[in-house]
């Protein structure tokens, strides 16, 4: 990874200027080590690295999205949003959060790109109408999402796709996908793309990825979907506090039955926890207050590809997704062809066997004795 902007203040300097205590800073480092699944002994190393780290310029692009990801980020507690924007990163462009508007806002993006070539991070929330789609489906300042994304990432150090729309297409990409929505990793092939999926993503995961980048100067280990292993390495099911009930075969049948009140497993109510990889069960939401399964609702599987198209939210994981008439007809035709072919083959084999039948004589049988 290239060196960071030398003209910027170090993180330690910024923190001290803002009156952040040493104790508070170390607490943040310990929490960061914990959420990145690093041993506690790494906390001082993280503190030392962050102390000297330069604040990276961050350009946040919002495309086909609902602002839920930004809403999630504003609920970040460790660090808080203010800490993140003012101390940890230099958030130079973000539609929702920046004071500037119109030309001034766009100039801020251009200035950040020009001042930090090869060094700035691009965070994207929202999906992008692909290059073959009508560019007018989603524009910012008259530029199509696709053009703005490709222009911005050209000199970026890396791209962090935030939320399921940016990582996998999300709701805009759900069938029938009228805008031809694509994910960031579908479009950006020549830069590292880190996916922080979720609808919305866990805010601490977003900040955790940035903290990892600042600490180690590189991006974290990723899974097959480019998601940080530290946060997406285990399924909801594996870490769910209701798991013992699954293992015992105790399931809530409705949302208000005895089992639901006793905290039994929500598998039968459509929980997608077994197939969903995220850190909700360990990090929880709202400063560790709770998470959907603890609130009595099954996991929707929001951090997985195509979760909008993966059958009903309240259908059990084993239930097939809805049957398509075209598929059934095609399958029926295939079935008829296979059945006909097998019947014809069997008939041919019988005919061949009859034609080549060679009766065994008594002499031959006796010769074998």
């Amino acid at each position, binding site marked *: 990874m290239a060196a960071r902007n030398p003209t910027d203040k170090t993180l330690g300097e910024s923190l001290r200027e803002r009156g952040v205590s040493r104790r508070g800073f170390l607490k943040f480092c310990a929490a960061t080590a914990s959420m990145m699944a690093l041993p506690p002994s790494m906390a001082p190393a993280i503190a030392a690295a962050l102390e000297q780290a330069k604040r990276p310029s961050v350009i946040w692009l919002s495309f086909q999205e609902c602002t839920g990801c930004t809403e999630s980020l504003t609920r970040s507690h460790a660090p808080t949003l203010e800490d993140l924007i003012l101390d940890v990163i230099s958030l130079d462009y973000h539609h929702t959060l920046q004071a500037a508007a119109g030309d001034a806002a766009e100039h801020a993006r251009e200035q950040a790109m020009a001042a930090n070539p090869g060094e700035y991070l691009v965070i994207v929330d929202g999906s992008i109408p692909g290059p073959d789609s009508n560019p007018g489906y989603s524009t910012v300042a008259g530029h199509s999402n696709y053009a703005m994304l490709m222009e911005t990432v050209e000199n970026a150090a890396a791209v962090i796709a935030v939320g399921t729309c940016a990582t996998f297409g999300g709701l805009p990409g759900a069938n029938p996908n009228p805008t031809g929505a694509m994910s960031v990793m579908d479009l950006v092939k020549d830069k590292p793309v880190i996916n922080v999926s979720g609808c919305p993503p866990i805010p601490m995961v977003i900040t955790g990825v940035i903290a990892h980048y600042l600490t180690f100067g590189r991006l974290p280990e990723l899974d097959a979907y480019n998601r940080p292993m530290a946060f997406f390495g285990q399924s909801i*099911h594996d870490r769910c506090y209701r798991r013992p009930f699954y293992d015992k*075969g105790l399931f809530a049948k409705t949302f208000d039955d005895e089992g639901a009140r006793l905290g039994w497993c929500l598998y039968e109510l459509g929980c997608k926890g077994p197939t969903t990889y995220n850190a909700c069960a360990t990090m929880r939401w709202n400063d560790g207050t709770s998470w959907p399964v603890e609130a009595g609702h099954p996991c929707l599987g929001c951090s997985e590809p195509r979760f909008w198209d993966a059958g009903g939210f309240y259908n059990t994981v084993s*239930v097939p997704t809805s049957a398509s008439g075209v598929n059934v007809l095609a399958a029926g035709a295939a*079935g008829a062809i*296979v059945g006909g072919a*097998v019947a014809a083959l069997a008939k041919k084999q019988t005919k061949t066997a009859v034609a080549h039948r060679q009766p065994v004589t008594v002499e031959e049988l006796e010769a074998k004795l």
Partner: protein
Amino acid sequence: MSGSMEFLLWTKGPMFNIAITIFAIGLLVRIAEIFMLGRKKNFAEARAGEWGPGFRTMVTRTVADPGTFERAPFNVVVGWIWHIGFLIALLLFLPHIALIESLTGLSWPALPNPVISLVTSVTLVALIATLVHRMTHPVKKRISTVEDYVVWAVVFAVVLTGWLAYYRLVNPYPLVLGMHILSAEVMLILLPFTKLTHIFTTFIARWYNGAAFGRKGVQS
């Protein structure tokens, strides 16, 4: 974009539709084939009823008589173990019941998951034993065809992937769940066109034999 979740959704979506349709049509073809075989008209006067002997033979051919047990104890014991284990795992495991309910609206109580996992483990061992027996028994080795091994492999794959999925021994989980569903779909597709058809025809055939015996007045 492709990955384990897309694979799982493919097995739960388009592939499931294809498999269930080929299975349904294939089974119809086989049943039609059996009915179209036809039988010569029987002019002899029936000596006894057909229904009683028919049902009796369904039972007597299912429960091995002492002679059969003495001749082939392995076939009887291990065959029973894995068939029953397979049926328990198929019909009394909660996710399977949910699947059947989504297709038919019918449901029934499930066995606790640990019981199913134990039964499945025993079934796996029994299935491996049947393969070893088939490959080492002098007669079975000779009479076994490629189809026998294919059928064994498909059944084994269904149980093994289900077992691996239950214990979450393959990561990511959607991959192994997709493999389990796909192997079950392959079994569904092969079912009408291989010896697996016996799932549907065994008891019908036994009833038919018993009924014929009853009509002729011989012991069923």
